[in-house]
């Protein structure tokens, strides 16, 4: 199990992983979406960061869960 987790995180931080391209995309989605919700720059910035971090962590958790399921079954 530890080997599997290590492999998952090593492949995730690899420079050759095309998933890196999703972070700028997520950042743009966060800023545009929150800019339609708020008017003050400070509110837009804070809520965008919150959105970015929560979605990135959520996707990471989902990816890890799918990876573990694919290994276990």
């Amino acid at each position, binding site marked *: 199990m530890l080997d599997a987790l290590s492999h998952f995180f090593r492949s995730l931080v690899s420079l050759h992983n095309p998933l890196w*391209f999703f972070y*700028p*995309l997520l950042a*743009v989605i966060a800023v*545009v*979406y929150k*800019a339609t*919700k708020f008017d003050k720059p400070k509110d837009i910035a804070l809520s965008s960061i919150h959105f970015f971090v929560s979605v990135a962590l959520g996707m990471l958790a989902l990816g890890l869960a799918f990876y573990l399921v694919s290994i276990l079954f």
Partner: protein
Amino acid sequence: MTDGAASLRSPVAALVLAWIFPGAGHAYAGQRGKAVLFAVLITGLLVAGFAMGRGTNLLPNEWWFAPQLGAGGPAALLTPLSQYLAVRRPVDWASPVREIGTLYTAIAGLLNLLVMMDAYVLLAYPGEKQERERARETGGKTDDA
């Protein structure tokens, strides 16, 4: 801008302008800062995706073209160029970078639909957003997450 000045402007014109060029609807509604932000981010995302696909991912015969069209003017301008490049260059259909580039362009179009609706709502229901923000600041009930 005052609500009175906003009410003289047409929400439908804001919607159409936002489709013609991302952010133009907000500029029309008087929100210049947001207009620049939307123009830079949405057009930048579209152009970045186009470049990642080596200019071959804005093709009308692919289903991705429907969301891509949401980016309006810039997407319409890049489409003939994409058709030209797809004929001239070999297209690597299986390239993951090209696929992500296509996703970038499609998301740019979908985000512009959101921005178009926001520009419309700004003029169709002036003051509603400020009321919601005020309610949020004072701890009142709001209808969004």
